[in-house]
């Protein structure tokens, strides 16, 4: 592309972003767009058509606001606080109704402002906002990341169940045969979940492990909640067939398999789907894991 069309495109995007109300230099806005493009197309140069489509799909006003805040424009920052503080606080209260996530939201402001104790250049967290979503959603995502990481690290420090005094010596399943069968079933279930297609596993994880509603699961997967319900029923059927096949392969008779299910039904204490998901994820070939 020649310089002139790029310049024209930049000016158009600048106007659409209404970046002049923050007195944001055009160069700073162009740098933010370039950074966004570089992240979206890390492997090479996109065609001018793809580039134009991508740039037009960005949340330009939010990008200009974030850019202006990162540059330290007072008016932009005031606007940001006015608009985004309620979003952050409401999200924090939803994540932890007892108010435990409020301090995370408050501490987030420091990182967003990019305060540097040594007086060096500002390193605002808002530089990592590339305009692919609304600024409010991005802030919710950052807050959710921090909250989940805090909870996960706190859980790692929790004593193991067998260290708990009330848990010592108290097996959730008194019948030793039953406990063994549940262990076998658990292994078969983990294998069945691991063999599911990623989307099926994701749907199962959203609904059962994360206990989202059908509507929430549907919104994440861009499916209607009736479709989610139908697909979950289908996945359960697939899992059941796979579990039974695995148990048969382990030499269990039909009667023993039926007993397996009875035991799991009566008391599935150690059956933690979240753990099963972790195990099933570990079984997957790690080379398949990709990130973007």
């Amino acid at each position, binding site marked *: 592309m020649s310089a002139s069309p790029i310049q024209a495109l930049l000016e158009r995007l600048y106007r659409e972003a209404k970046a002049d109300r923050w007195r944001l230099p055009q160069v700073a806005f162009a740098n933010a767009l370039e950074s966004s493009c570089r992240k979206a197309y890390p492997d090479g140069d996109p065609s001018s058509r793809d580039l134009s489509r991508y740039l037009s799909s960005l949340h330009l006003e939010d990008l200009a606001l974030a850019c202006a805040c990162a540059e330290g424009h007072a008016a932009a920052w005031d606007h940001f606080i006015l608009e985004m503080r309620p979003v952050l606080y409401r999200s924090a209260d939803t994540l932890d109704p007892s108010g435990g996530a409020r301090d995370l939201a408050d501490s987030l402001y420091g990182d967003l402002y990019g305060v540097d104790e040594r007086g060096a250049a500002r390193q605002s967290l808002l530089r990592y906002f590339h305009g*692919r979503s609304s600024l409010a959603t991005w802030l919710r995502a950052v807050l959710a990341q921090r909250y989940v990481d805090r909870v996960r690290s706190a859980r*790692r420090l*929790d004593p193991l169940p067998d260290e708990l005094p009330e848990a010592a010596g108290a097996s959730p399943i008194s019948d030793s045969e039953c406990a063994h069968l549940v262990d076998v079933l658990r292994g078969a279930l983990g294998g069945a979940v691991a063999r599911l297609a990623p989307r099926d596993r994701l749907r199962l994880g959203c609904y059962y492990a994360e206990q989202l509603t059908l509507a929430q699961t549907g919104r994440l997967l861009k499916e209607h909640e009736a479709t989610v319900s139908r697909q979950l029923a289908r996945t359960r059927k697939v899992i059941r067939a796979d579990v039974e096949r695995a148990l048969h392969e382990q030499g269990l008779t039909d009667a023993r398999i039926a007993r397996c299910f009875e035991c799991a039904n009566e008391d599935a204490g150690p059956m933690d789907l979240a753990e099963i998901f972790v195990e099933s994820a570990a079984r997957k070939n790690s080379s398949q894991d990709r990130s973007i």
Partner: protein
Amino acid sequence: MKREPVTLGREADNWLHRLLRQRSAKPGAAAPAGNCLDADVLAAWADGTLSAKELAIAETHVANCPRCLTILAAIERTVPPASVQPQKQHLLIRWLVPLTVAATAVAIWVAIPEQQVIPVARETAATRETPSTSSPIPAPSPAPPPVAAPRLDAKQVEGRQEKAQSQRAANARADEEAATDRLARLESALADSAAPVSEPLLERDRAAVGNSAATPAAPPAPQASAGALSETIGATAQRRAFSKESVFEAVSPTEPLVRWRVLSGTEIERSTDGGKSWARTSKPPAPISGIRVVDALSATVTTSDGRSFSTADGGATWTPVQEKPAAPF
């Protein structure tokens, strides 16, 4: 050989459902799958702006990464209610539309069958005519309110339909004669009177004669579907105007040869031979604006001051009718 599942039926699905629901409420502490999605991608996923390729890659990762799954779920939980509202409204509208259609259909179903099973008195071709704009006679006063029709069982309906069918043939003949008669009167009036008579009115009467002759037993055209709603057990007369006189004419729904008519809003005549001969009856105490006919002896007239009078003796005496509240249908 394919094995039959050990657990069958709904119970078999329930155990797995219950099993899967039993989990810790805390997010998993297991290590993430590595190279987790950053906030930018997670937010773009939540906003639905990832490309199909990016979404497929992200789904594969999140399906194997408990940390990203938990973060994604947390983002979804924090969706502000305002973002969810449009979808709820959409769902509400999606339910409202078929409900409204169904309610309308039920209302039509309730209303229409009552009209269909009742042999509607056919108005003559002339009485269907609306007054011409050039007519010196003022616009007709509204017809009497429709009478609530009783619900009929299947046998009654069948009987009445057969009867109505036979009546239609007789009506067609009578219509032809009446239209011919009126056409002759119209043309003579046009010749005698200086008052203008609308040409379309004449044309319509000519057409009525022609149509009636061509299809003597043709069923009544669904011309006045709105008017049909006001036609009930009794035939409702409408005012029609010629150059110097106005005629209200109504046919009995049960006896097609029985006709009643009101001349110039004051005189009432009755015919029992399809309009060939007319006998004058006594008059109600006020100018008449409408007439409803039941049979050769019974009829009800509405006067211009809003009162109603009925007769059960062929018009020899007229007794005032007590107003009753209108029926819902």
